[in-house]
C-alpha cells in the first residue's frame, strides 16, 4: 500500500508497528460510536503498547474509545469526540491458570466464549451471562460490569474479579488486587474501574475466581397470569431455601420474541422462567417445590425441554441482537430497583407504553431487581422524551434508577441516557480529572457528561 499517512498514523505505527494501525475511512466508519467515526484504529499487541498509545493520545489530545469486540459500545452517551479506536483484540492470552486453585488471569481482549471453552477443559467456568453472550470480551464485560440473569446466584463481575491491570493516560500499567481470593491491601481499584465505561483507564488484564461447572441444569416455567400473582410467587421463592440460578419474568411480547412464536398460556401470558442447577437430586427438589408452590397458588407450571431452554436462554443473553433482528428502531431501557419493586415497575411501564402507543417487551430479573424493557414503534421527539422521563419517574418513585441502553437514531441521547446523578457527581468528576486530566478517555460517554 502506498497511501500517504499523516503524522499521527506514522507516530502510532512507530509505537505499535505499521500492521497494527489503520486509518482507512471505510474501516473507521464501520466502528462508529454514537454516530461519530474515528480517524484511526490501533490494535496494540501488548499491554505495554496499550499504555504507550494512551500516553501518546493524551499528549496529542486525541479522544480514545477502548473496544473489545464492540458488543457494549451502543451503551452510554455518544462521545463528545472520537479520534482513536483502541482495539484490544490482540490481547487475548490467558497468562495464568491454576485450575486446582480456581483462579486465572486473562487479557482483556479475549472473548468470553473462547475463555469458557478454555476453562471447560478442567470442568470450570466463569458464571457470567453478559450482554453479547459469548461474543463479549472480558474487558468490555468488566468496563460495563455486565451481568445477565445468572447474577441472582453468582453476582456480577464486580464480585468475581480478584485483581486488574490497567493502562493509564500517563502511559503506566498499574495493578490492584492480585490472584488470591481475599485481599484488602490498598484501595480497591477493581471496584472503581469495573463499570467505569472506559473513562478512567483501560483494563488490559484481570484475575478471576472460577467456579466448577454445574452437573446439570433445568428450566421450569410458571405462568402466574397476573403481576400480583407473579409478585406473590417471587416472594415465596425468595423466602424459601431454594437457590435458583436465574429467575426472569417475561410479558407476552417478550416470551413470544424469545420463543419465536405465540406463547402458550392464558391471555396475559406472563411467564416466570426459573433455571436451576446442580446434581439430579437438587434439580428434583427444586422442580418439586416450585411446582408445589405454583399449585398452591393456582399457577400452572411446566418443565421446558433442555434444548428449547438452552436456545431461549442464549437468545435472552444476547437480547440486543434479538431486538435488532426484529425491530431495528428498538429502544432498550434498563431499570435497577429494590428487589420487591420489579413487578410494580413492569405494571407502571406497561401503562406508560400504552399511553404512548408503543409495543413493549419486558424481561424482569425479579430476584435481583433489574428490568429490561424493549420498546418499538417509538415516535422520536417529544414522545420518546416523555416515554423515558415517565419510565424514569416510575423507577425513581420505587427507589431505583433507569438508564437508556439502546436508542434509535435521532434520540436525544446526550441528555437522556444516564438520567440525573446524585450528590456524588462532583466527586466522580474529580476522580475522572485525577486519572484522565486531559479528558481523552471516552469523553462524554458516562454519567453527567464524564
Amino acid at each position, binding site marked *: 500500500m502506498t497511501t500517504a499517512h499523516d503524522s499521527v498514523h506514522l507516530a502510532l505505527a512507530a509505537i505499535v508497528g505499521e500492521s497494527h494501525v489503520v486509518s482507512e475511512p471505510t474501516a473507521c466508519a464501520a466502528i462508529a460510536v454514537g454516530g461519530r467515526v474515528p480517524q484511526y484504529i490501533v490494535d496494540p499487541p501488548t499491554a505495554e503498547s496499550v499504555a504507550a498509545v494512551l500516553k501518546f493520545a493524551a499528549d496529542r489530545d486525541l479522544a480514545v474509545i477502548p473496544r473489545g469486540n464492540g458488543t457494549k459500545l451502543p451503551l452510554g452517551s455518544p462521545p463528545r469526540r472520537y479520534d482513536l479506536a483502541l482495539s484490544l483484540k490482540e490481547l487475548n492470552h490467558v497468562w495464568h491458570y491454576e485450575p486446582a486453585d480456581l483462579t486465572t488471569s486473562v487479557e482483556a481482549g479475549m472473548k468470553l466464549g473462547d475463555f469458557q471453552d478454555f476453562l471447560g477443559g478442567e470442568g470450570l467456568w466463569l458464571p457470567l451471562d453478559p450482554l453479547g453472550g459469548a461474543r463479549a470480551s472480558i474487558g468490555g464485560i468488566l468496563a460495563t460490569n455486565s451481568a445477565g440473569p445468572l447474577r441472582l446466584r453468582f453476582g456480577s463481575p464486580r*464480585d468475581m474479579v480478584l485483581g486488574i491491570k490497567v493502562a493509564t493516560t500517563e502511559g503506566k500499567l498499574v495493578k490492584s488486587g492480585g*490472584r488470591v481470593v481475599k485481599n*484488602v491491601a490498598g484501595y480497591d481499584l477493581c471496584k472503581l474501574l469495573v463499570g467505569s465505561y472506559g473513562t478512567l483507564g483501560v483494563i488490559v488484564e484481570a484475575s478471576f475466581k472460577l467456579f466448577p461447572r454445574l452437573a446439570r441444569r433445568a428450566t421450569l416455567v410458571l405462568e402466574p397470569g397476573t403481576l400480583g400473582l407473579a409478585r406473590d410467587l417471587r416472594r415465596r421463592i425468595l423466602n424459601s431455601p431454594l437457590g435458583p440460578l436465574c429467575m426472569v419474568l417475561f410479558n407476552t411480547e417478550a416470551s413470544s420474541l424469545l420463543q419465536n412464536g405465540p406463547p402458550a398460556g392464558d391471555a396475559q401470558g406472563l411467564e416466570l422462567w426459573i433455571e436451576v442447577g446442580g446434581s439430579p437430586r437438587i434439580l428434583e427438589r427444586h422442580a418439586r417445590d416450585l411446582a408445589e408452590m405454583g399449585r398452591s397458588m393456582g399457577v400452572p407450571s411446566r418443565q421446558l425441554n433442555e434444548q428449547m431452554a438452552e436456545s431461549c436462554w442464549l437468545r435472552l443473553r444476547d437480547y440486543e441482537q434479538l431486538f435488532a433482528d426484529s425491530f431495528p428502531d428498538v429502544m432498550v431501557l434498563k431499570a435497577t430497583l429494590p428487589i420487591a419493586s420489579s413487578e410494580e415497575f413492569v405494571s407502571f411501564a406497561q401503562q406508560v407504553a400504552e399511553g404512548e402507543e408503543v409495543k413493549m417487551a419486558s424481561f424482569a430479573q425479579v430476584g435481583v431487581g433489574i428490568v429490561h424493557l424493549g420498546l418499538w414503534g417509538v415516535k422520536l421527539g417529544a414522545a420518546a422524551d416523555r416515554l423515558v422521563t415517565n419510565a424514569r419517574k416510575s423507577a425513581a418513585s420505587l427507589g431505583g*434508577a433507569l438508564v437508556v441502553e439502546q436508542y434509535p437514531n435521532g434520540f436525544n441521547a446526550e441528555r437522556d441516557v444516564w438520567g440525573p446523578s446524585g*450528590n456524588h457527581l462532583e466527586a466522580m468528576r474529580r476522580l475522572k480529572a485525577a486519572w484522565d486530566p486531559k479528558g481523552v478517555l471516552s469523553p462524554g460517554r458516562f454519567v453527567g457528561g464524564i
Partner: protein
Amino acid sequence: MTVRRNVDILSLLGQQGVGGRANRYSPPLRSCNQRRPAVWYFMKPTALVRELVSILGRDAVLWRPEDLMLYEYDGLSSLRPPDVVVFPRSTEHVVQVVKFAASRKLWVVPRGAGTGLSGGSLPWQGGILIVFSRMKDILEIDIENQRARVQPGVVNLDLSLAVSDDGYYFAPDPSSQKACTLGGNVAENAGGPHTLLYGVTTNHVLGLEVVLPTGEVIHTGGKFWDPPGYDLTGLFVGSEGTLGIVTEITVRLMRKAETVATLLAVYDRVVDATRTVAAITARGITPAALEMIDGFTLRAIEEATHAGYPMDSAAVLLIEVEGLREAVEENALQIESVCQEKMARQVRRAKSAEERDLLWKGRKNAFGALGRISPSYYVQDGVIPRTRLPEMLEFIGQVGTKYRVKIGNIFHAGDGNLHPIILFDPRDADESRRVREAAQEILAKCIEMGGSITGEHGVGIEKINLMPLLFTADDLDMMRKIKGVFNPEGLFNPGKVFPAGKMCGELRIEAGAGGVL
C-alpha cells in the same frame, strides 16, 4: 505544596504533658506504670474543647488525660492517646466536628469498637478521635428487599440477631463479631470464616452515606444494584477511613440456609490437613467455611474453652457446608471422603446445634486463649494461593525454628488466608526483634507465592512499610491520586495505608518504626 507539619494540637489544648512523648511502638505495658504529673487533675478545658462541647454537649466530649488513655490503643497496640475524643449522635454532629477540624487543620480519626488488628483506628499522631458508640441504631430493616440500613456503630452480630427471627442474617462474620462495629467492618473490608462462600464485606454493602473532609455529605448507591456512575461504594469499602467517614450503611441481608453440617477432621500430620484443603478446592466443593487449627493452638484453645478438639492431634480442620438438605448431604459426604483419602485420623460431624456452637466458640475465642499462655502475640494476615498451603505451613515452621519463636496457626484455610500467631514477651527486646524479622520473612514468602500481605485485617499503620513490596511506585501513585481527590490535606486518618510519599498530607514514619508493634 508544603508538607504539613504536626499541628501543635497539644499546645492548642494546653496539655503539654498529655502523651507528649510519642511512645510509638513501645511495649503495651508502659501506660500502667508511667507516672503522670499531678497537675492533670486540676486542668480546665481549653477553648478548643469548649467549642467541641458547644457542638456536641458536655457528655459527648472527653479530654481529661485519664479518659483519653482508654483510646490510645486498638487491637494492634498502644501508641499515644488522641487529644480529644468525641461521641457524635448524628450525621450532623459528625459534619460539624469535621468542619471544625477542617477550619483548624486538625487530624480526625474514626473509631468503632477498636477491635481492628492493623491499627486502623489508632490516633497515633493525636488529633480528634470520633467514636461511633452512640450512633448504633438499626435505621431500617427491609426484609422483602433483603436490605438493612444501619448507623456505623451497630455491632456486627446485633444486626444478624435483629433479623434472625425473619430467617435472615448478615454474612460477614469476623471473629470479633460480638464487639466489632459495621462502620469498622466497612472501613477495613472485614472478612470472617464464612466469607469463603459468601464474600467479604464489600460484597454485602450497597450504599453509604459519607462525610468528606470538607464536611460535605455524599450518598453512594442504595438498596438496588448497579446505580449509574462510578462504584464509589466499592471504593470507600476498605479505604480505612482515609477517604471519608461513613455515617450510614445499606447492607444486604442473606436468607439463612435450610441446613448446616459442621465437620471436624482430625490429623496426625499438619501436611495431611493442608493437602485436604487443596484437594477440597480442586474438587470444586466450596464449603461455607474451611478453617484450620494447628496442634499447638488447639491445645491452648481446648484448655480455655473445652471445645472438644482432640488434645493429641497435629491439626484439625473445621469445615462447614450449608444450603439445601440435598446439597449439604452430598457435599458433606464428598468432604468426608476427601478427608479420609488425605489420612484424617477421624472425621466427626456435629450432632447438635450445641456441639456446633462449641466447635465454633473454640475457633472464635482462639486469640483470647493464646493470651492466657503468652504475654503478647502478633497476628499476621497474609494470603497465598490455596494450593501452596502445604509448602507454606512447612515454611512457617522453619521460620519459627530459625528465629526461636513459637508460632501458632489458626486460619481461613479455604481462602488461603493465613493467621500465623507469633507469641512473645514485649519486655524482651531481642525476642521482639526476632518476631519482627520472622513476620517479615513470612509475608515476603506470601508475596513471592503471588499472594498478599493482608486478606481482611487491613494495612493500617502495621503494614504500610510492606506496601512497596506488593505495589510499584506507579501503583501507589494512582491510589494516592484517589486519596488526593477526597482527602487532599490528609486530615482524615493520617499515616494509614500508604507509606510515606511525596504527596502533601502524607506523614513520614520514623525509620524502622513501622511494621510490627
